[in-house]
């Protein structure tokens, strides 16, 4: 790096099964558990857990950001690289509202039938994720 500030930050999105995205971006917005966080080059080092939500990649200031839905995970940010560990990551355009509504309906039925607390807690987590998905699709999320 020269004395001039580097204009991009490397962004990596990895799932346990493979590396999904690895490219330089000018800024990335991640859904941190303490609030959304914009990460650009030279960001201070942060380790944060993530809420289910949208990761938005800004490659160029004028372009529409590329949006990817993640169902929680962790982000490891240093000045040069932002690594997001996610178990489930879906490009936003692949999410269909009808499918999510169906999923939500199924899940709430499951919740009604679940008897044990442990099962209920699990289903509630999935509902939270599905709701976040719907917010992402309907654009209720902050962008």
């Amino acid at each position, binding site marked *: 790096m020269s004395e001039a500030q580097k204009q991009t930050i490397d962004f*990596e999105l*990895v799932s*346990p099964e493979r590396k999904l995205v690895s490219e330089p971006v000018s800024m990335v917005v991640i859904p941190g*558990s303490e609030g959304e966080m914009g990460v650009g080059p030279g960001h201070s*080092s942060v380790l944060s857990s993530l809420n289910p939500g949208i990761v938005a990649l800004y490659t160029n200031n004028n372009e529409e950001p590329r949006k990817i839905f993640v169902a929680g995970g*962790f982000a*490891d940010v*240093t000045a040069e690289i932002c690594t997001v560990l996610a178990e489930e990551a879906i490009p936003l355009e692949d999410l269909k509202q009808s499918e999510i509504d169906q999923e939500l309906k199924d899940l709430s039925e499951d919740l009604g039938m679940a008897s044990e607390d442990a099962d209920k807690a699990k289903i509630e987590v999935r509902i939270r994720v599905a709701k976040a998905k719907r917010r992402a699709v309907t654009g209720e999320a902050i962008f």
Partner: protein
Amino acid sequence: MPSLSDYRDRIASVKSTRKITSAMKMVAASKLRKAQDQAEASQPYARSMAAMMARVAGNISISDSSPKLLAGTGSDQRHLIVVVTADRGLCAGFNTNVVKMARQLTSRLRADGKDVSFVCAGRKGGDLLKREAGDSIWQRFTGIVGKSRVEYADSDKVAQYVLEKFEAGEFDVCTMIYNQFVSVLTQTPTTQQLIPFKMPEEQDNEEKSQAPEGPVSVYTFEPDEQEILKALLPKNISVQIYRAFLDSSAGEQAARMTAMDNATRNAGDMIDNLSLQYNRARQAHITKELIEIISGAEAL
């Protein structure tokens, strides 16, 4: 003495066995490549996870308020051993090596008066341990490896089961035994302690080489170290188990490939041997007939 047709039958049967073993070898070879690719692809996640764990764990000291997954329950009386094997056999010592190691560990722990229970991932491990372990096998998981790819969701089931049992306070220490994939020719049975969390030494070096040069940056943790650690620890266990499955799956195919290669070669040797004996017997038969004819003619 076996008749000529006996020899012919045996040669035919060994030949078809050879066909099967060589086909199995080729199937294993192609599966091995896929399994290796998959293991490769999962590396970035495991590496980042290890780096994160190192950072967080290096930042806090173990106290009474630390999560139990890190600090332990304060006792080491009840052990749980996760045995990772293949679902199928015909892969030489692959399964037995792991089980042998599990047996050694068990007898050592039992000699110290500890309680030992098992979770068997892979059908073979459960089958081999059934006799001595019996009721202490809590759960058996099958159908995780052996498919075209190891799904994270499947291995996560094992992790969730182990974590649930730990939350319920049913064991203190969890150890995993699996075949580490060293090379196509070598798979080493390896013991890894999952709970309480232990930092593997080798990752220290990796962490250092990954660390950016210059002044060490101070990390901010969101929410805080404890919270992150609480979320990271179960994930880490899940990832470790997933990695063990991937290693085991690649190792299984490699072991099967080697075993089938040997079997094919042995079958070839056997066919050579039998053909030799067959020819000898045929020659002896012809000679005998000739002698009979000649001596019959001489007697006239």
